[in-house]
């Protein structure tokens, strides 16, 4: 039974499947079930032991919409480009909450799963990705409420409505991209933990959510367009109300910036992920 093996100096190593060189995409496919389970866990856990449960997914945008309608719509009387105020705010708040919760969850995903990172191997990028998928459910539930708005305000149904689900893709990519970058940064610099909620607060004001892009003079609108979220959020409004003045050039710019963010984030993530388990 006992085999004594002391040195193997002169044997030639045989060629084996080298995992480290295994293509990333193929590996991600192999780990798709873990991705699914982690997203499932996030969804499952979110509203456990709450009385209102999944209603929370609706309450946040709904109540914010009410406050915005009263404060910004009535009191401050900010233009909504002729769109009913509740529709104007709700159609922007839904994607906004999806973005901000995805950004937060993805940004914190690595640090909050430090126990997993140091105990088990899996493609690390699954963690921020699962966080993004987990928030999507809230967005979908919120979107169902749109039917109520469409009926109540008698909004004509057209092809533009198809844009609503389509726009979710670039929005997800944007949230996942920025969240992934922040997650990798967060492993090294815990400053990010404080920067995320603060940044999200500021972002709310530099994104056309409370106001439409057109409140700015034309020559300053490009400033708003640097923020890729601007073009996306305005397009969500267009998807619901086709007469809404959407800026296609701004959307185009948003998509380009989104792509750059995704590529940059994945590049940075891949570059730093080797050290995650050592420094998290």
């Amino acid at each position, binding site marked *: *039974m*006992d*085999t*004594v*093996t*002391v*040195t*193997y100096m002169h044997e030639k*190593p*045989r060629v*084996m*499947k*080298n*995992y*480290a060189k295994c293509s990333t995409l193929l590996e991600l496919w192999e780990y798709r*079930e*873990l991705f699914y*389970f*982690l997203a499932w*866990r996030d969804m*499952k*856990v979110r509203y*456990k*032991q709450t009385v209102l449960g999944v209603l929370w997914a609706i309450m946040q945008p709904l109540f914010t919409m009410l406050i915005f309608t009263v404060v910004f719509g009535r009191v401050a009387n900010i233009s909504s480009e002729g769109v009913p105020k509740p529709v104007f705010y709700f159609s922007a708040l839904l994607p906004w909450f999806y973005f901000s919760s995805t950004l937060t969850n993805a940004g914190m995903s690595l640090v909050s*799963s430090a*126990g*997993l*990172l*140091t*105990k*088990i*191997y*899996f493609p690390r990028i699954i963690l921020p990705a699962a966080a993004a998928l987990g928030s999507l459910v809230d967005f979908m539930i919120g979107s169902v409420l749109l039917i109520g708005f469409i009926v109540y305000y008698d909004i004509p149904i057209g092809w533009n409505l198809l844009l609503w689900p389509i726009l979710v893709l670039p929005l997800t990519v944007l949230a996942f991209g920025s969240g992934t970058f922040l997650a990798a940064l967060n*492993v*090294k*610099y*815990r*400053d990010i933990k404080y920067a995320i909620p603060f940044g999200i607060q500021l972002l709310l004001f530099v994104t056309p959510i409370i106001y439409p892009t057109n409140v700015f003079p034309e020559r300053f609108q490009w400033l708003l367009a640097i923020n890729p979220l601007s073009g996306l959020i305005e397009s969500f409004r267009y998807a619901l109300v086709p007469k809404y003045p959407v800026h296609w050039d701004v959307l185009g710019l948003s998509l380009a910036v989104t792509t750059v963010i995704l590529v940059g984030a994945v590049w940075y993530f891949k570059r730093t992920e*080797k*050290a995650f*388990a*050592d*420094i998290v």
Partner: protein
Amino acid sequence: MTRQIEVQSLCKSYQIGKLQHDLSLREQLVDFVKNPFSQKREKDETIWALKDVSFHADEGEVIGIIGRNGAGKSTLLKVLSRITHPTSGDVNVKGRIAALLEVGTGFHDELTGRENVYLNGSILGMKKFEIDQHFDAIVEFSGVEQFIDTPIKRYSSGMRLRLGFAVAAHLDPDVLVVDEVLAVGDASFQKKCIKAMDGLRSSGRTVFFVSHNLAAVENLCSRGIWIDAGKIRMDGGAKEVIASYMASFSGEQVSGTDLSTKTNRLGSGEIRYTKLEYLSLDGMPYAIIRSGDALVLRFHYHAAASLHELSFGFRLFSEMGTLITECGHWMHGFRISKVDPGDGYIDLEIESLTLLPGRYHLSLWITAPGGRPVYDGDVQASLEIEASDVYRSGRMIDNRYGFVYFPQRWKVGGSVVSG
């Protein structure tokens, strides 16, 4: 036999001193502004957790990795299981590798036992259909059938452990990496776990096993690798490696536990324990204590005042907190009528320590006879017992067989044939 895993000149270094991640972004920015062209400000000290480690393993080998704390065993396992990347060197693995560095990795408190089985299983690399297939067996193995739909935050720590190990026991990897997980859990459960690992071995899987329990390593492993200061000190048959490892301890002087710095102790403090030493009968300090060894416990104390009628003693607990025995000289009718101020010690001689291997806790006390007042109480010390061949049969008797053993003799009569 087929080559399963191949490790070539593996090195892993860590930077100690001021770690990069201890710096906040602000500090790094300030740094950058001050000195924009230097890559690194100060020379960090580098420690090598692994240095030029090479070996390979074949299908069906069960390899025990032994060594002292901080020798690099855990780092090696982490590199093998790809959790951390080597600084240099190569690891080639054929097939699926599963790492069991912790029981119940990724368990979520809010989820039920059933949900956690799926989550944990998939984290450990099982496919959903595999978990479906094994689900009933996992639940049966864990023994928590009744609570499978209860959130595990309501589980006791023992139940969690069982559930975690039950999932792990149904893994079906080509290479399994296990770190010290057998150290927890009760004896019957450990027996189950060892059986499960035996099953893996007999089905031709390669297993890497790190443990401080040398008897378990000897029982389970065919081969041993001894890691010392990040290097392979010896690679060979488990028995030979363990013997050399044990031999390396002899001649080493380990003084006992310093008790003077222990803070959470009871009592009024006129007299305090300062030190506990583990000595042989001729007064030499032990570095490693094995079942059946003769042992002198030397209790050092410091008395602040002159005290009359004292009672010294201690309670011995298992690692899980079961009281095994309490010893005190008062029970022997042995009287200490006066202690002068200053330092001193008393010895307790044990001819043969009939404790089975494991980690034990001592809780030391000094009181007046009858228990009151307490001068010093609940002073914690620990005692580590290694396995030995207590029955002189060539068999290592480990902690699967309980906490204690009796010196014993078997005799046969009638129609029993022995030998």
